[in-house]
C-alpha cells in the first residue's frame, strides 16, 4: 500500500508556478502573481516556485505548469479560473449555489476596483523604485527604463488618465477602493474566511492584494491607510500570512500535497475524467482529400515556376557565374 502510494506520488507531474521574483519579504512581489500563489497554498498543492525575470510587460505571467500542461494568466479568465476549470484546484467547486451571486460580485469587485487601485498607485503615484525592483531590476538598464516608461503610459491610457482629469480619476479610483474595503469588511465580519468558513478564490484574490498593499506600497500610500482602517481585514491578512506565506518563503514549497481528490487533482495522461478543452487556436483537421489537393497544387505551381526559370536561363544564357575578377583592369586591390 505504501509502495503504491509512493509510485503514485512519483507519477504525479510536478506543479510549477512561474511568477515574478520575490521581494519586500514576500515570495513574489508582483500583485498579479500573489493571488495565484495564495490560491495554490490555500489548496495545499505542493508546487515549486520559479521566477521569470525577462517578461515585465507580458500578461501571460504568472503561469502554472503541471507536467506538459500549462495555464497562462492571459487565457480564459486567468490562472485561477483555469486551475478551477481543469480541476487542478477545486476551492470554488463546492460553494453552494445560493452563495454564487454574492461570491461572483465580490470577486469582480476585488479583480477590478482594487486591482485598478493597486495598478494606479504602483505605476502612477509611487516612485519608480518599487516597480523597478519588482519588474525591471534583472533587465539591462536601458531596456528597463524604456519598458518602465511604456508600462506607465499604458496604465494611464488604460484608466483614461490625462493631465486634465488626473485629479478626478484619482478621486474616483480611491472612492471605489474605499467602497470595496468597506464591503469586504462587512462581508468578512468576524469569520475566518469570506464564504462558508473555507477558502475560495475570493480569499486568494483579496489576500494577494492586501499583502501587496501592506508590504510593498509605502507608508504614505492612500490605499494602505484605507485598508488599515478595517481591523478585521488586517486580522484576516495577518492570520493567512502567518499560515501561508512566512513558512513557504523560506522553503519555496508549500505543505505536502494532499491526496484528497475532492480538493485538488492533477490531470493525468490516461485514465482520468477531465473536462474536455479545445485549443484556443486549434487548426481545423484537414481531410485526406484536402491534403492531397494542396500537395498537388504546390507541385503544379512549382512546375510552372521551374519551367519559367528553365526558359529564362536557356534563352538568357548563363548568368554572372563565370570568373569573377577582382578588378576589371586586372590590378589587385589590397589594403
Amino acid at each position, binding site marked *: 500500500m505504501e509502495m503504491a502510494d509512493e509510485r503514485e506520488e512519483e507519477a504525479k507531474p510536478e506543479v510549477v508556478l*512561474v511568477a515574478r521574483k520575490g521581494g519586500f519579504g514576500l515570495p513574489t512581489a508582483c500583485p498579479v502573481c500573489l493571488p495565484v500563489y495564495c490560491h495554490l497554498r490555500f489548496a495545499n498543492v505542493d508546487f515549486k516556485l520559479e521566477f*521569470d*525575470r*525577462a*517578461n*515585465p*510587460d*507580458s500578461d*501571460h505571467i504568472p503561469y502554472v*505548469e503541471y*507536467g*506538459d*500542461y*500549462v495555464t*497562462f494568466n492571459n*487565457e480564459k479568465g486567468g490562472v485561477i479560473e483555469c486551475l478551477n476549470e481543469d480541476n487542478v484546484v477545486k476551492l470554488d467547486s463546492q460553494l453552494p449555489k445560493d452563495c454564487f451571486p454574492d461570491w461572483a460580485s465580490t470577486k469582480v469587485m476585488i479583480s477590478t476596483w482594487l486591482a485598478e487601485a493597486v495598478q494606479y498607485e504602483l505605476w502612477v503615484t509611487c516612485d519608480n523604485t518599487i516597480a523597478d525592483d519588482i519588474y525591471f531590476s*534583472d533587465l*539591462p538598464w*536601458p*531596456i528597463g527604463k524604456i*519598458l518602465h516608461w511604456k508600462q506607465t503610459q499604458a496604465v494611464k491610457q488604460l484608466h483614461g488618465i490625462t493631465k486634465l482629469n488626473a485629479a478626478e480619476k484619482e478621486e474616483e479610483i480611491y472612492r471605489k477602493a474605499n467602497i470595496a474595503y468597506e464591503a469586504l469588511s462587512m462581508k468578512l465580519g468576524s469569520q475566518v474566511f469570506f464564504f462558508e468558513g473555507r477558502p475560495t478564490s475570493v480569499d486568494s484574490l483579496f489576500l494577494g492584494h492586501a499583502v501587496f498593499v501592506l508590504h510593498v506600497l509605502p507608508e504614505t500610500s492612500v490605499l494602505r491607510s484605507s485598508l488599515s482602517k478595517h481591523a478585521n481585514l488586517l486580522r484576516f491578512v495577518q492570520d493567512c500570512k502567518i499560515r501561508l506565506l512566512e513558512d513557504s518563503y523560506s522553503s519555496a514549497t508549500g505543505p505536502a500535497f494532499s491526496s484528497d481528490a475532492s480538493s485538488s487533482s492533477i*490531470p493525468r*495522461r*490516461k485514465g*482520468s*475524467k*477531465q*473536462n*474536455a*478543452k*479545445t*485549443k*484556443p*487556436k*486549434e487548426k481545423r483537421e484537414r481531410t485526406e482529400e484536402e491534403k492531397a489537393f494542396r500537395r498537388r497544387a504546390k507541385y503544379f505551381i*512549382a512546375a510552372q515556376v*521551374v519551367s519559367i*526559370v*528553365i526558359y*529564362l*536561363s*536557356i*534563352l*538568357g*544564357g*548563363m*548568368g*554572372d*557565374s*563565370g*570568373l*569573377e575578377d577582382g*578588378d*576589371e*583592369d*586586372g*590590378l589587385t*586591390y*589590397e*589594403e
Partner: protein
Amino acid sequence: MATPSDSEAGPNPKPVEELETESATNDEHQGEDEDEIEEEEEEEGDDEEAEEDETPAAQRENINRLFRRLSGGPVRLRVQDIIIRGNTKTKDALIEAEVLDAFRSACSMQELIQAAGLANTRLRQLDIFDSVSITLDSGPSELPGTANVVIDVVEARNPLTGEFGAYSKPEARSWSLEGSLKLKNLFGYGDIWDASGAYGFGQTSEISAGVSLPRFKAISTPLMTRVSLLSQDWLKFSSYKERLLGLSVGLISTGNHDLAYNLTWRNLSDPSHMSSKTIRRQLGHSLLSSLKYTYRIDHRDSNLRPTRGYAFLSTSQFGGLGPDSRILRFIRQEFDVRGAFPLGFYNAAVNFGVAAGAIMPWGRGFMDSTSPLPERFYMGGHSSPICSLGGPTSLLGFKLRGVGPTDERRAILTKHGEDEATTPGRIASPGGDAIGGNLAVTAFADLSFDLPLKLFRESGVHGHMFLNTGNVVDLTPAEFKNFSFRGFLETFRSSAGFGIIFPTRFFRMEINYCYILKQLQHDHGKTGIQFSFSTP
C-alpha cells in the same frame, strides 16, 4: 581601362606622348598639348569622343615613340603635385586620401600608370562620382623628372538612387526581396546614406537605415553604421517570434577581415501560447552587445559553380561587452572550409566542405546557464552548401530547423463529445519545438558535371550528385565531461541525391532528388524532389 602593359616607350619623358585607351568625357581635355599622357577611364553611360589635335600620322608617331621609350626600361618619374578638379561638394582631403598612397610609391612612368589605374578604381568604388578621369601632366620645368597628376571628377548628378532586388543577408537568415534608397555624398565625405526595407520568405521583415563612410579621420578602412528593426517569425518551427532593434557598427571591413560591433534589443514572444518549456524559459527581453570578427578567404573560381580553388571562413562572436552583467554573455565560433578540384572531363568538378560551430555561455554560473536561443545552431533547409560560406547550417533533404534537439510543445486536452463524462481525456499530439544546439558539424561532397545537351551546356545548366551529413547536439557546459565522441558520430544524419542546377543572374536554382540515408526520431527529413534557391 587598364594601363596597357605592352606599350612601347621613347627614351625621353619629354615630350610625353598621348596615350589613349578610352576616350575622355570631359571636353576640357580636348586640344591639350602633346606633352600630356592621358589615361582615360570612364563610368557607364559616358560617351566616347576622340581627340584630334594633331594629324593622325604625327599622333601615331608620338605614341610609337612613347611605347618604345616605356618598353625600353623604367622611365624615372615621380609625382610632384596632385591637382583635383570638378569636386564642388566632395572634400579634397577624401580624394587625396584615396589616391595618395598609390602615387607616393610610384617612381617610374610604368609605376605611375599602374598607380593611376589603381587610384581610378578606388575613386570609382566610392560610388559618388559619375566619372573619374586621371591625367598625367608634366611637372614644373625647373624640376625635371616630375609629373603632376590631374584628377577630374564628375560628381553624381542625381545623388538619390533606388534599388530593388533579391539579396541574401545575414540578418535575414535567408534570401529576401529588398528595396532601398541611397543618398550619396550628402556632406562631401563620401558618405552614403541608405534606407531599406526587406521581406524574406522565412517570414522575415526588416526596416533599416545606415550610413557608410569610406574613411573616418585616422581610420583608413570603411566605417558602416546601421540601425535596423527586424521581425522574424519562427512560430512554425520553434513557437516563438523574434523582434530586434539593433545598432551595428562595422569597424573594420577589408577584403578578408571584418570586425563589427552589434548592440541589439531583442524580444522573444509566443503569441500562440504553445511553446515548449525550453522556449518558454527563454521568452522575454534581452540585450545583446557583441563583437563579431570574420576572416574569409575565397579563392574559388566561381561562387555559383566552383570547379577549382578553396575557401575558408572563421567567425568569432563574443557577446557580453559591457559592465552590466545582465547582458547576454556567450562565445560563439564557426569554421567553414571548402575545396574544389576539376576532374578533367565533362567540365566535372568535385566540391567538398566541412563546417563546425560551437557556442557556450560565460560568466558567473555559466555551468548551469543556457546559451541564447537565437544564437544557437539550427540545421536544415534547402539552401545549397556550395554557394556561400554559411557555417554548419545546410543539410539538403531536411526541412528548415528540421535537425537537432527538440522539446515537446504544450500539451492540450481534446474534447470528446457525448462521452466526455465517462471517457478519459485524450491528449492531442502537440509536436515539438526545434531548440537548436550548442555544437554542430556538417560535411558535404558534391560532384558537378555538364549535361549532354549542348543547349544546357551553353546556358550553364549542369547536373550534380551530392552527399550530405551533419549533426547538432545540445551540449551544455555541465554535460561536457560526459560527452561521448563516439555517440556524437553515431547520431550523424545523412542524405544523398542528385539533381539539376539552373544558374541565373540573380540566384541559383536546384531541382534535387534527395534520399534520406539516416535521420533520428524527431527530425524532419523527407525523401523526394526538392527545390533549392541560393544566392551567391
